[in-house]
């Protein structure tokens, strides 16, 4: 166990930080360590490319053995998202104008013609920092993240 981890656990025991804060800090240390590992193994790459988008719906600790809570575990390859977004470049120009018009009607000022392959890579790259964590009142824990 590293010194930083010990410190976080001590602060948690002393109730100086909340459980959520401790979890977040431990995750930060984990990601920093895995980043260092990949740098030392791969040389130049600091961060591994995300491979999958994961969506999980699991019961929380209280409802873990409950049969009433649905469980969902979805893994979508990033390459599928990439291929799907690339399909937008194949939309015929007439259809593109219609899409732009529909978006404008909804108050979204976005031109699908401006989506370029470089932007897609940037968009998918930035997904690596995505993490959605929702706990519902029904005892479900929804997580959206990339790995």
């Amino acid at each position, binding site marked *: 166990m590293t010194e930083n981890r010990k410190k976080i656990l001590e602060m948690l025991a002393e109730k100086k930080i909340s459980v959520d804060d401790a979890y977040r800090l431990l995750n930060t240390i984990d990601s920093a360590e895995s980043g260092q590992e990949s740098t030392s193994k791969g040389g130049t790459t600091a961060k591994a490319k995300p*491979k*999958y988008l994961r969506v999980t719906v699991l019961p929380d600790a209280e409802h873990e053995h409950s*049969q009433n809570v*649905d469980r*969902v*575990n979805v893994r979508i*390859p990033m390459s*599928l998202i990439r291929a799907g977004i690339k399909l937008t470049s*194949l939309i015929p120009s007439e259809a593109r104008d219609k899409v732009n018009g529909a978006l404008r009607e909804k108050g979204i000022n976005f031109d699908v013609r401006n989506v370029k392959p470089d932007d897609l890579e940037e968009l998918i790259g930035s997904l690596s920092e995505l993490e959605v964590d929702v706990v519902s009142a029904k005892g479900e824990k929804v997580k959206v993240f990339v790995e």
Partner: protein
Amino acid sequence: MNRPPTWMHIRIQGERRGFGLWLPLFLLLPLALVVLIILSPLILISVLILLPGGRALWALRVLRAAFGVFCSLRGIRIDIQSRYQSVYISVV
């Protein structure tokens, strides 16, 4: 582009009974090749018709993109479990 997926595993479990299926996706490729060969005269005619409007290139790009999407399916996994039913789909 990724390698095309080889198998699709589907498992559906109901309250009383369930079933599992292993679909050999790798068999689709030779099948598609046979269909392509059979339909090649028709494809050639449609390409010649679409060529002046510049649509032939677009149609080929769509085909390529569709194949890209098919290849990207490898690694997808969907696992949904409710109280009485569970569905599992995986592409490998």
